[in-house]
């Protein structure tokens, strides 16, 4: 275990990054967001992800497309990440998973089965137990601590 920890530490050093000049726009944060959504979507669906982000920005489009097959509309998607609160009601829930970045929205709208959001300056993920069951989503053990039972 010690060797394992040491190796991890060494790797994290190797990837710690002092930069010379940041000439290109720094988009590591969006890259991490995309990786986290990829991880969640893959674990939830277990098949190829067709992602739809309402009102997606050009920068998001560039980065998310490296990890996902992006769709231009809600109908053809199987995973919707509503990260601007701009999803319209005409996007119906048929064989789709809806994810938000707003905890309040998650609590109040049954459409969403989970959220990836910041709380008290820390990033957080929450899945609603009842909605996971309703959507037949089986998550692995690593997600257990992120599942909330809200007695809907």
């Amino acid at each position, binding site marked *: 275990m010690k060797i*394992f920890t040491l*190796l*991890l*530490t*060494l*790797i*994290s*050093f*190797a*990837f*710690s*990054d*002092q*930069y*010379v*000049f*940041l*000439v290109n726009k*720094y988009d*590591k*944060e969006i890259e*991490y*967001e995309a*990786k*986290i959504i990829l*991880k*969640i979507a893959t674990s939830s669906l277990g098949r190829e992800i067709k992602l739809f982000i309402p*009102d997606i*920005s*050009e920068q998001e489009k560039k980065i998310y497309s490296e990890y996902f097959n992006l769709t231009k509309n809600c109908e053809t998607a199987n995973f919707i990440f509503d990260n*601007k*609160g*701009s999803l319209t009601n005409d996007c119906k829930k048929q064989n789709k998973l809806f994810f938000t*970045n*707003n*905890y*309040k*929205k998650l609590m*109040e709208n049954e459409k969403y089965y989970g959220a990836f*959001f*910041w*709380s*008290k*300056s*820390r*990033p*957080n*993920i929450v899945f609603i137990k009842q909605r996971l069951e309703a959507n037949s989503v089986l998550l692995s053990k*690593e*997600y257990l601590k*992120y599942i909330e039972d809200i007695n809907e």
Partner: protein
Amino acid sequence: MYKYFIYLFLFINILYAQNIDTLLQEYESNTKKSLKTVDEKLGHVKIYSQKDLKLMQYTTLTDILKEFPINNLNNNKFGISNLSLSGSKTDVSGFFRFFINDHEVSSTYTQSSSLSWINLPLDFIDYIEVYRGNSSFALGSDAGIFFIRIYTKNPMKENGSQVVGTIASHGTNSQSITHTDILQNGWSYLSYFNNTKEHDKRTYNNNTLENDAQRRYFYLNMQKENTSINFGYTDVKKDNYIGLSLDANPDSGEIESKDYFFDFTQNFLDDKSLKVNFAYDFSEVDYEEKNSSGLEVLPVLNMASLGTTIPKEYYQNIELKKYSGLLSKTFSTNKNNFVVGTTFQNKKYFTKQNRTVNFLNITTDVGQFTPFDEETISSLFVQDDYKFDDKLSLIGNAKFDKFKRDGGLDDFTSEHYRVGAIYTPFKKFGIKSFYTKTSLAPTFYNIDYADITDSNSYNMKNQEYKYYSVEGVYADEKSRFSILYTNVKIENFIYFSPVGFINIDDHTIKTQNWIFDYTYELSAKHKLQLNYYRTSLSETLNNSSKGGYIKFTGEFDKFDYFTSLIYRNGYSFTTVNVPNSYNFNLGATYHFSKDISISLKGENLLNKSTKSLYKDGLFDTGTNFALEDYQREVTLSMKWVF
């Protein structure tokens, strides 16, 4: 064997990165590096990240400015912190621009930081970028030679509330509350309130110079994907320290000021390439002072009848209003970014009260010092950066201003140009260089306090700056080393002579600076930073010209800790000898939980503060003397996040 280890490393790394907890941790630590808005094309940049601000326990903006290279942070005669360029001391400097969320908060009257924003508390600030370069090219502001961009915490990434209470050894204390929330309609907001009471005093000629102050701040930021609304308010009520007194010992005096602004920014189009901004700024300053030995209120003095024009009481109330707007559009291709924009500013200066009482007890309503009380500036700016290849980027800027001024002052146009290059021939090494030609127009303050011996001094000339800079950087996984050289030439420098502001037009002022900077990451949680700089100046030195710092920060278990030593060299001016300054600081934070922490910080523990020069007496008579800029202080603070 070697290959085997590489494969093993990569394999483990993939497993490691795939864990959702680890991804979240990496995401959080990456966000705290605060690199999202860095724009290398604006100049030579230094970032104070969210992590730096937290570990170094910086309480106010002045804590950062104290250590900032090629500058000295001094107290002026009103006891207000003011930045001066290395080697020189100014009471009010107009070279620096301060922005909060891209709104300029420099004073409309002096172009310097206003009385209160320079002491901005940092507990609602996310990170700070300091650029050596001219902000006016890309931000459309007034010209300056370096600028500070301050970013408030992002409500989307805070989403909670925070209470901070602080008490220091001399009785200075502050309380603040931050609240952030995300609404369901996509809007989020941050609101902040701070109340600070400062206790500070010095002794000169056995007299106590009081410098107590009470400051309050309120800030509101509301944002949605393409819209940002900011409202900032601050007021201060403080003692006037030395003030205008001829014997450096006022009988009584007080300064009150109030500043607020409203700023609205909207981005249009999918790529946010069209930007519209409107802003309104208001500031009010109320000054009063009584002194039985007389006051040096330069603009009211008449050289032919000094006996009846030297006041013993002075009352002033002024207001400044500024309306500004910006429209810019960016055109981007794979290799080229072209920005074109236009700005408009209208500045109005109102004198509500300006009254003196002389030694014959005659009250005089002075009215406006000069008829100049309105200025309108229209500007057009363009920027083009061309990415020649992955290694070389070229940058070109131009800005044209049209100044319309009332009160019989000449209207004029000014032009600003800059060319630059960023060249990274190797992954670990790069060079960045700029040549800039810019011009700083006189302010309302410069004109009010223009040379009283010259009736034509109001039509002061612009200060013309020509400067170039070269920066070389070497960086590997754990360390970053940079050398920055700047060479500045100033024509028509606006100098505060004993009889008021004059243009130095008989010679060119020259200054050269070297900054050496080294950062070494001892481990993922421990960092060492070293800095040394030196300046040569063509004029007589009246401030420190060399300096540097050593900073160490770390985290272990539930503790954060830091130590720093900030050095400024000694100097002599006339009969005053100012010794070296060694500002030694030490601090630690204990986290009871993720939400509650307590911090202890000792500042200037060796009691070897920098000193500022002052002078008593009228015009160039009197005595020069030096007073310490800050005290030795221990501060205890508590933070609760909920």
